[in-house]
């Protein structure tokens, strides 16, 4: 009964979503305030029914209702409760419902907190959000119904959740990631509303900033979690693979950074409105494109959901309609928003514009690399792969100018020529950063490759330049407490990127991997550590059996850690999984992954020394923190 209730609620939600754009739309045409006002209650009603549906599916999972096909495919009676809950978004249909659920959450928040906006503007925003929800609900009901039942012969037990997903990462990564993806629908709706209304005097940029920053912060955490999860779960010590689905989340993220900065230009200086509005459309378009790529089967990816050609076609049509309409509107209305405010060549404005150009171009490069195999196959009927050598080669060089320009922004002022300032305030910073970039690695490594000097140098340049800004600011304000939330936000965000860049640089150049055959009581050396294979014993869990190794980690005679990597065999699906054992540290991780038992006795194993790898996620968290501070600072302004 509950699954039917869930399905029925979805249908009601679909109707309300349709009403959400139809009725207020009519209200706009006829200048009928009452009909325009209906947008809010309709949106709230839609959210209510979506929530009911979501809870019904959740109930089915918690109650082990295997008559529901989706539950039978992704859950199992012996699955721990917390995974039964998160299995809801472990597959295509459920994760799509999560998407819709989160969109309704954002829409509700907008409709309740943005009453101070002019009514027609807010009405248009809600209409756009209604259309998006309508499209997704239609897609869900037409091709991806999560409430399909296996009656009358339903299985006694489910197929079980993929063991790779039976992990803490699954519980938080998709919801936070989707909060970001879906959240960009809000700036998109604001941009459409602006273009549609055609009134350039409205402070749309000011209104958009908090929403963009919030969605960006969530997406940052979501991506960072994905990276961290891959690192400890997959067993090969990698944290970014330029996989198509990773790229699908990274592209909106990069362009969102550009959008956040052009919003500043539009808000404070009333320039580059056209660029801002275009970027707001592009960011959400990339979100939708990502949704398409993951669920249509056009690209091979470790993330890709099982595909169905019907789904691919529907999503592509949806993408074409939404983004096509948005860009058509843009092509007609953007001219109204151009202006010709004069700016200095060497200025904060120019620094920001050039940075955003590089950011967007690098996003375009990632798009090109991700889609090229598909395009190449369609055109030449041959298969080609585009992997990390390409992405590293095109992405990293484009980031260098961005990092170089970063300290300049905060230290300069709007509408000023900053050429003199650059030399006056930052010369010694640059020299000091370069000196440290060469000197610091020499303390613990034998060689300092050019790549290290570049990456570390740029990271230190940004940190030192931003610290300089901080000290100047504190001198003016008197104390740290005097800093605005926005300023704090900028500080954390910029230093966060620098910390991330330093982490990436150092781990990439100085990591050590050893793949060995090791028997009990043997040892191996890695960096200045000694690892001893102390013990091996059989283990058993709720839904698996396996072996657990015990490794001792010594540094210069002192025992630093005990690590217990495992090999698990999940009985239901017969899959073999490796559970890595990591000794985390601020300056290094020691990472051990068991391979297979060897014919000649002993086991194969991989041991990694990963210096500064945690800085990657620390940097990402700092960026998210900065985003949240900035969003808070701009809230309801």
């Amino acid at each position, binding site marked *: 009964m509950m699954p039917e209730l869930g399905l029925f609620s979805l249908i009601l939600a679909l109707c309300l979503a349709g009403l959400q754009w139809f009725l207020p739309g009519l209200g706009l045409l006829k200048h009928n305030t009452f009909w325009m006002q209906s947008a809010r209650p309709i949106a709230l009603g839609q959210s209510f029914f979506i929530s009911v549906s979501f809870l019904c599916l959740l109930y089915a999972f918690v109650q082990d209702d295997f008559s529901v096909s989706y539950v039978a495919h992704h859950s199992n009676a012996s699955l721990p409760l917390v995974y039964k809950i998160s299995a809801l978004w472990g597959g295509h249909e459920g994760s799509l419902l999560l998407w819709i659920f989160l969109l309704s959450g954002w829409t509700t928040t907008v409709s309740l907190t943005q009453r101070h906006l002019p009514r027609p503007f807010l009405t248009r925003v809600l209409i756009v959000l209604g259309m998006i929800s309508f499209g997704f609900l239609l897609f869900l009901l037409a091709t991806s119904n999560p409430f399909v039942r296996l009656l009358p012969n339903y299985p006694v037990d489910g197929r079980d959740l993929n063991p790779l997903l039976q992990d803490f990462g699954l519980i938080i990564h998709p919801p936070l990631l989707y909060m970001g993806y879906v959240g960009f629908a809000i700036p998109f709706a604001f941009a459409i509303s602006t273009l549609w209304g055609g009134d350039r005097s409205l402070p749309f940029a000011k209104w958009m900033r908090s929403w963009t920053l919030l969605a960006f912060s969530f997406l940052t955490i979501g991506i960072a979690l994905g990276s961290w999860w891959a690192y400890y779960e997959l067993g090969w010590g990698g944290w970014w693979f330029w996989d198509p689905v990773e790229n699908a989340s990274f592209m909106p993220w990069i362009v969102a950074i550009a959008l956040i900065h052009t919003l500043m230009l539009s808000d404070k200086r009333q320039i580059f409105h056209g660029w801002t509005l275009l970027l707001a459309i592009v960011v959400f378009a990339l979100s939708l494109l990502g949704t398409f790529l993951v669920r249509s089967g*056009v690209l091979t990816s470790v993330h890709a959901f099982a595909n169905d050609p019907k789904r691919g076609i529907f999503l592509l049509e949806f993408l074409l309609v939404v983004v*096509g309409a948005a*860009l058509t509107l843009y*092509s007609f209305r953007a001219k109204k928003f151009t202006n010709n405010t004069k700016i200095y060549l060497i200025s904060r404005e120019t620094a920001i514009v050039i940075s955003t150009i590089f950011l967007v171009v690098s996003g375009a490069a990632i798009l090109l690399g991700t*889609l090229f195999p598909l395009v190449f196959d369609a055109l030449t009927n041959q*298969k080609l792969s585009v992997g990390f050598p390409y992405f590293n080669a095109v992405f990293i060089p484009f980031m260098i100018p961005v990092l170089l320009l970063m300290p300049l922004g905060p230290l300069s002022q709007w509408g000023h020529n900053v050429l003199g300032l650059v030399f006056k305030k930052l010369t010694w910073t640059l020299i000091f950063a370069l000196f440290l970039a060469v000197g610091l690695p020499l303390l613990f490594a034998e060689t300092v490759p050019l790549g290290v000097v570049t990456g570390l140098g740029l990271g230190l340049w940004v940190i030192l330049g931003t610290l300089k800004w901080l000290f100047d600011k504190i001198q003016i304000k008197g104390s740290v407490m005097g800093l605005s939330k926005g300023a704090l936000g900028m500080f954390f965000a910029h230093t966060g990127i620098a910390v991330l860049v330093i982490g990436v640089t150092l781990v990439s150049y100085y990591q050590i991997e050893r793949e060995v055959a090791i028997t009990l009581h043997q040892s191996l050396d890695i960096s200045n550590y000694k690892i001893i294979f102390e013990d091996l014993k059989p283990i058993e869990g709720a839904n698996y059996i396996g072996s657990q190794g015990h490794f001792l980690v010594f540094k210069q005679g002192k025992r630093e850690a005990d690590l217990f990597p495992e090999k698990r065999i999940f009985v239901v699906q017969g899959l073999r999984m490796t559970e890595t054992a990591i000794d985390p540290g601020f300056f290094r991780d020691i990472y051990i992954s068991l391979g297979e038992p060897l014919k000649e006795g002993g086991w194969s194993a991989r041991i990694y020394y990963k210096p500064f790898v945690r800085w990657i996620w620390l940097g990402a968290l700092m960026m998210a923190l900065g985003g949240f501070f900035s969003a808070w600072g701009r809230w309801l302004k």
Partner: protein
Amino acid sequence: MRYLLPLCLFLALGGFLWKGLDVNPKEIPSALVGHPAPHFALATVEDPHRFVTEQIFMGKVTVLNIWATWCVSCKAEHAVWMDLAIKYNLFLVGVNYHDDLKMAQQWLKAVGNPYVICIFDEAGKLGLDYGVYGTPETFIIDKAGVIRYRHVGSIDTQHWHSTLLPLIASLENGV
């Protein structure tokens, strides 16, 4: 007008994605189509003392089937080969890939041997040289010993009638 540029680029992208829906990213065509069958010198499953090379492909159209006892799809495909081999009088050569000799012999004895010759590729060297990545795989080799086609996955009658059989027939007639 330059404001139309984003829309135009997007529509071009959409076009490519549309075409892309017809493409299967997992299928990899064989790099060896059009090349002579690579050399090998291996024993057979039936008689471990008898050695064969790629010379056995000369002068006839060969259907080369890569299989193993550990491969579930191969076992499923077996019945199809039993039927097709006799019905179409095929020169069906098997390659037992990365397998155990005893298990292979027992299996063929138990379910029947559709192969004229079955090569024993214990180390997988033949498989590697032929670009095998997913058992079962089936190659069609012409009378001159040149690889003409490679099918990945188990054979179903639809594929057989639409692609493989016509190719074999045309090769038999000396194309």
